[in-house]
């Protein structure tokens, strides 16, 4: 008989025979493992690391991996601190009853924040093991050497003992300290980064083989005996009220188990999946439309954003005296930029399976915040938290707060209602129309140049159409709850973003506002974090505008930015100014940037080529990107032919995995720049599939993407070089880099995203290009 992870943690330190760790936890798809499921004690080393008799280790990480290799990276940093070979380690992530609540994923903080407690617990395990070895071998710790999980007497390597022999299958019973999970620590000191052997190497991601041979069991694949299939029936328009359901309309559907409804939430539950799909299509529901328009149509969106009274505004952040300086400017430049609602539109629609066996609830989900889901479902269904666990499994990613959250709650609700395991999955039209959206923006910018072309005044004013970011899994923010009338007492304030750059501008004012759409609750235009929630929008405005200023000053775009960066020596604790300069320089060097003002002289043929740069940071991670584009003046098609991306996220754990993450991030933003716009009329979203919400395809792929990994720290070899986050910063500058390249190629400034063919062609025609 094998012991489960929870059995192990319940033991008092005795040897647990046949301990298997990863397999029986994650693949415990029967949902029958007995609860309750109390929170793990983060102050116990055993909550984080298990070492088996065969000298292998498993790390328990309360994060989730969105396909960016964070699991592999955690194994690298922990194996290095522990002095274990990488391939003798494994990693379990995001399963709420067997991993400490580190919040799941979000904010690109896996390595930047959570990397440190993980390093510290691994270092502590090493320290404890060395003490045990000293006792076993009868020499002081100072006379021991450890390598690949084997401790030996330095002067006599025949005297040795493995970690597995010291602790295998037993508990450490070592108490840790720290006032919160992020602060968890033992007594051991972290290694200097120059002592690392595995960090900085590029072991292949462990999750990839099973993803290419078809063997991986994803969250979509979980099945248990007696499981039912559900589909939702969404309101036909935003804000509709359920009047009645004609259940006889599905009387002929085989396998129908139940039509479920509460408030405006409606679902059908059937024995088989295709039956549930048929029933959802066939069910006749009488809805009452609201009497007023739910929102402006997408055509009227920007007018609405400009004129609506903000629901919240930040007090202006002011440096110097921007109004007075603007009065003295030799040249004043003004521009406005528009970014639409954009969708996560995951490649696989939202799904989850909930199993109510044994009077408890197990939810299998790919949601990136499994812990929040557990908490939220407990509140939503009034079930004690320790009767619920969420098993995180791999799934289609969408990089942010998506409908995966909503589906988890729906499955849990339906499983409780039916008393049987229920799997729910959204259809494509639901996913594209009803998944949360990245907020639309209007950015207004004004800048003053003196007679020498120096930027002396800058005024930035951004409005986000965003009634308030949804939270993550709170019981009143998920769609099913809102359709049932459970809502927060008032909208969140929400926020819009400010430019993130280190430019030394003597006089500046930054103001941000949030405006609400008329329909706030249970709306398909609810906003949810989408890969740096507001950064691509604000950076499109600010970095396009810097380019407009450089052009007005007739100065090269790199030179103009470099001057703004180097005209101050002030820097922050993370050396962001120095690292910004290093990234800008690295990108320009790699691209072989020729110094000249934009636009260039118009090419003579159909294809107009140009290059553009943009730069920004997020938290401590700095990125500069150069895009080279081809613009077809006959069709309006823009092809981003080449991207150079210089990126500084401090200490790099796995360079090859980082490159893939950055390539994907850049291309995600190429897609957002060229194609993506959520369309809607005044009552519903009309982007409902891949034809009405087009994204980038293979045809748009650049010929070349060059990732330059930069370490611009003034002391690049310092032993405490931090590891910063990398998932989101890279998405921010791409929109502006492309717009700036199009301007360079054509002399035409595009200020409304996306740059679809017809819009580009119209702009070229207006400018007679």
């Amino acid at each position, binding site marked *: 008989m094998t012991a489960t992870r929870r059995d192990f943690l319940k033991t008092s330190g005795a040897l647990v025979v046949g301990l298997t760790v990863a397999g029986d936890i994650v693949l415990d798809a029967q949902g029958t493992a007995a609860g309750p499921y109390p929170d793990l004690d983060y102050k116990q080393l055993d909550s984080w690391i298990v070492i088996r008799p065969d000298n292998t280790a498993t790390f328990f990480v309360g994060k989730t991996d*969105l*396909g*960016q290799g964070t699991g592999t990276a955690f194994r690298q940093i922990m194996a290095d601190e522990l002095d274990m070979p990488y391939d003798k380690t494994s990693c379990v992530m995001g399963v709420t009853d067997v991993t400490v609540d580190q919040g799941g994923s979000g904010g690109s903080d896996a390595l930047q924040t959570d990397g440190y407690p993980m390093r510290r617990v691994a270092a502590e395990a090493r320290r404890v093991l060395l003490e045990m070895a000293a006792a076993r071998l009868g020499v002081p710790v100072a006379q021991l050497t450890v390598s690949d999980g084997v401790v030996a007497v330095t002067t006599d390597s025949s005297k040795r003992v493995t970690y597995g022999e010291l602790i295998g299958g037993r508990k450490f019973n070592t108490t840790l300290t720290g006032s919160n999970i992020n602060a968890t620590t033992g007594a051991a000191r972290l290694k200097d980064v120059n002592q690392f052997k595995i960090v900085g190497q590029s072991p*292949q*991601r462990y*999750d*990839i*083989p099973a*993803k*290419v*041979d*078809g*063997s*991986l*069991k*994803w969250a*979509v*694949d979980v*099945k248990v005996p007696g499981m039912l299939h559900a589909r939702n029936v969404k309101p036909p328009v935003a804000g509709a009220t359920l009047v009645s359901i004609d259940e006889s309309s599905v009387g002929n559907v*085989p396998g129908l188990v139940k039509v479920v409804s509460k408030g405006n939430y409606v679902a059908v539950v059937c024995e*088989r*999946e*295709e039956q549930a*799909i048929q029933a959802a299509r066939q069910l006749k529901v009488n809805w009452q439309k609201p009497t007023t328009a739910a929102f402006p149509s997408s055509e009227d969106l920007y007018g609405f954003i400009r004129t609506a009274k903000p629901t919240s505004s930040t007090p202006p952040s002011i440096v110097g005296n921007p109004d007075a300086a603007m009065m003295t400017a030799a040249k004043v430049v003004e521009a406005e930029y528009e970014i639409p609602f954009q969708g996560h*539109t*995951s*490649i*696989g*629609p939202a799904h989850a399976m909930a199993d109510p066996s044994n009077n408890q609830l197990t939810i299998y989900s790919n949601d990136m915040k499994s812990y929040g889901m557990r908490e939220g479902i407990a509140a939503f269904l009034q079930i004690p938290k320790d009767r619920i666990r969420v098993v995180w499994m*791999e*799934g*289609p*990613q*969408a990089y942010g707060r998506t409908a995966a959250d909503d589906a988890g709650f729906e499955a849990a609700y339906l499983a409780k209602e039916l008393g049987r395991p229920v799997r729910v*999955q959204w*259809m*494509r039209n639901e996913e594209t129309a009803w998944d949360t959206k990245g907020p639309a923006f209007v950015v207004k910018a004004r800048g003053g140049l003196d007679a020498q072309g120096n930027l002396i005044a800058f005024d930035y004013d951004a409005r986000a159409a965003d009634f308030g970011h949804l939270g993550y899994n709170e019981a009143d923010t998920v769609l099913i709850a809102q359709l049932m009338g459970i809502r927060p007492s008032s909208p969140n304030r929400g926020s819009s973003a400010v430019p993130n750059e280190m430019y030394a501008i003597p006089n500046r004012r930054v103001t941000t506002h949030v405006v609400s759409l008329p329909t706030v609750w249970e709306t398909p235009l609810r906003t949810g974090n989408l890969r740096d929630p507001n950064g691509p929008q604000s950076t499109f405005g600010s970095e396009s505008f810097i380019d407009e200023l450089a052009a007005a000053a007739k100065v090269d775009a790199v030179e103009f930015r470099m001057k703004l960066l180097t005209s101050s020596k002030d820097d922050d604790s993370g050396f962001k100014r120095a690292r910004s300069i290093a990234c800008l320089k690295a990108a320009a060097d790699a691209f072989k940037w020729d110094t000249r003002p934009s636009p260039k002289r118009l090419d003579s043929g159909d294809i107009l080529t140009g290059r553009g740069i943009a730069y920004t940071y997020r938290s401590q991670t700095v990125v500069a990107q150069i895009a080279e584009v081809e613009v077809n003046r006959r069709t309006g098609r823009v092809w981003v032919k080449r991207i150079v991306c210089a990126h500084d996220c401090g200490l790099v754990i796995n360079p*090859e*995995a980082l490159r*893939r*993450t950055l*390539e*994907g991030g850049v*291309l*995600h933003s*190429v*897609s957002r720049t060229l194609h993506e716009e959520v369309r809607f009329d005044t009552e519903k979203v009309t982007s409902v*599939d*891949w*034809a009405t919400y087009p*994204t*980038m*395809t*293979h*045809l*748009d*792929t*650049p010929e070349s*993407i060059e990732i330059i990994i930069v370490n611009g720290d003034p002391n690049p070899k310092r032993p405490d070089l931090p590891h910063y986050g990398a998932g989101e910063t890279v998405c921010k500058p791409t929109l502006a880099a492309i717009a700036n390249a199009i301007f360079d190629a054509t002399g035409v400034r595009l200020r409304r995203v996306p740059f679809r063919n017809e819009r580009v062609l119209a702009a070229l025609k207006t400018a007679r290009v």
Partner: protein
Amino acid sequence: MASITLRVNGTSRMVDVDPATPLLYVLRNDLDLHGPRFGCGLGQCGACTVIIKGEAVRSCIRPVSTVAGAEITTLEGIAQNGKLHPLQQAWIDEQVPACGFCQNGQILTAKALLDKNPTPTDAQIRQGMANTLCRCMTYYRIQSAIKRASKTIASSKTIATASRVESEVIA
């Protein structure tokens, strides 16, 4: 409901389903295969792709009754004798997947492409893969992996030809 016999990855399997059921649900729910996945149900994205008679087919819109008896190959069925298909190996060597959810369609669409045209140009790869979507935008590495697999397949054929010639000489 009707009894339908399917040939999947070289094995005959009998299922009892409504003949109009899209093949995808039968593969996933009755035959427990994880390779083909639901992405859109509209034939737009390719996540559900299988290979039938050498063609990449979107199983989400193909009624199961229309493929009775035909040899159906899924992602699980392209490795041979325990050895990954050169495309699968190239996917690992290039570290292609991010989340990986769409990669079933990418790999099988690429296989159908290479089976017809073992040495495609860059433009032919782009065109051949144009309707197979990836939301993590791994397109750049997918195209590299297809080129890598194309080379592997070409060199293994050269070796096979060479050894055949050699054996003829010896004979």
